[in-house]
């Protein structure tokens, strides 16, 4: 157990010190989210009715959740590269705790997710976002975001070990996650959607987490969405963490 913790921290450290040296990744965490916030706020914002809230207040929890869902991409692509470059073989031949490579990866994602949440919040505040909630609720919201992001990193860890190349890790993740985040309450009120999409959006975990964030940050009605979001985070982790670890143990390295 002690080895698991220390090995996990070593791997997390490795993934964090390499980050500033891969500029394309750093851009994905910083410039890209800011760009999306500005595009949605100023291009679509005027056309979307969000009764009871200004669009920037409505948008920010949604776009932050979408961003955090994609935060695990680095894990998918990074793990896939590690398999191809033989690094996973090296790790598996070392007397280290077996789940540490994946646990360290996903742990590092928490740090990068926190970074991109901070960047998005600052951008949001500059263009007019304001919390309508107590500090405690605001902090609980941050915690929920990071928990959800962590759960999603395990999904991406599994994808990264499953597919044959970093490019396909990219497209599998994109195809799976992009529609999920759009057919939810993240960018528009669900009530504005056609009935089939609305039915899907209402059960979509992204709607549940976005609604939970709007409850915690804007004081919107909760409808149990906070507990629903916590349960979803643990369900996602409960399914994909064992799948990913199982895949890692067998990783053939081709």
């Amino acid at each position: 157990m002690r080895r698991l913790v220390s090995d996990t921290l070593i791997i997390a450290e490795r993934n964090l010190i390499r980050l500033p040296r891969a500029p394309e990744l750093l851009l994905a965490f910083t410039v890209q989210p800011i760009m999306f916030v500005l595009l949605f706020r100023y291009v679509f914002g005027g056309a979307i009715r969000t009764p009871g809230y200004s669009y920037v207040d409505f948008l920010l929890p949604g776009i932050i959740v979408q961003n955090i869902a994609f935060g695990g991409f680095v894990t998918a692509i990074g793990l896939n590269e590690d398999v191809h470059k033989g690094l996973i073989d090296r790790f598996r031949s070392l007397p280290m705790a077996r789940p540490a490579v994946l646990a360290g990866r996903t742990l590092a994602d928490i740090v990068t997710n926190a970074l991109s949440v901070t960047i998005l919040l600052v951008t949001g505040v500059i263009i007019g976002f304001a919390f309508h909630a107590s500090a405690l609720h605001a902090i609980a919201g941050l915690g929920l975001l990071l928990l959800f992001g962590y759960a999603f990193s395990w999904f991406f860890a599994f994808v990264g070990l499953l597919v044959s190349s970093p490019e396909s890790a990219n497209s599998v993740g994109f195809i799976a996650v992009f529609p999920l985040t759009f057919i939810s309450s993240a960018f528009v009120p669900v009530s504005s959607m056609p009935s089939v999409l609305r039915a899907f959006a209402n059960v979509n975990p992204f709607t549940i987490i976005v609604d939970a964030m709007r409850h915690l940050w804007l004081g919107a009605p909760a409808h149990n969405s906070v507990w629903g979001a916590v349960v979803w985070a643990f369900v996602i982790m409960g399914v994909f963490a064992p799948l990913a670890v199982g895949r890692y143990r067998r990783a053939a390295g081709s």
Partner: protein
Amino acid sequence: MHFAAHTPATDQPGPAAGLDDAAITVRGVRKSYGSVQALAGVDLDVARGTVVALLGPNGAGKTTLVRVLTTLLVPDAGTAQVLGCDVVRDAARLREQIGLAGQYAAIDENLTGLENLTMVGRLYGASRSSAKGRGRELLERFDLVEAAGRPAKTYSGGMRRRLDLAAALVAKPPVLFLDEPTTGLDPRSRLSLWEVIEGLVAEGTTVLLTTQYLDEADRLADTIAVIDHGRLIAEGTSDQLKDKVGGERLEVRLDADADADAAIRVLAPMSDETPQAQGTLVKLSVRERSGSIVQAVRLLSEAGVGVDDLALRRPTLDDVFLALTGHAAEEASDEREGA
């Protein structure tokens, strides 16, 4: 674990130390990928402090055997031990005794040389400072001090391989596995890597290496195990294998317009096998060294076949491979590329 406490093979007892001096024991190991049989029942013994080369073309099963012995793959059947640790039952203990450098330089390109080695050292259980110290020591040994603080993506191919090998040596493992350590390297880098490996062997490390290069096996290995289609087809020292092919080889370079068929016909009585021609080069094994050049020149001039050059030489491992497998080593690797 503290690295300073470790010394190579000599007084680094594995759990079965004293019982026998086998570093690696393989019995009846089989492994298939789907319908492809990569290992079809392999037996192998490697004595402590020796170097064994697994020689064979691509797809012969060399890498699969290394992966079984380094616990990356579980065999379908058979058993294997490294320093008395079973590859399946004692996998965790076995990993503490081995170092692995693969076909690809398994390093993190975004970490510096020192960061790479420090990370591996800490994953072996060393403290940060002791891992860093050991990293510096290895960078010095592998002539990477100047590049120690640069991300590995700026390294040349040869430097990456040296860093990879250094990473395999971080914990001073008594047994080292090198999977095609010099594939893709330029001749100078190859030579310097050979010298490093020879240095390790001199310190008592047991080495199992795989190679497609006959000259590499010839230079580094005490014992050569020839592997083809997942089976060991021959094992012995370089000299023993060469003796299997038979005595001296006579190579006759004919004049450009000479008749190769006529040359084969007149030279045939000198050999137990049919001489072989490749363009104007005719090769045959001869029963006796003395007098064979004179005899060949006489036979050929009587038949009116023009000779450009003539040489007697010991058989190379190329000849061994051809004799054992019925195909040349290089040809075979092209045929089964990617298998």
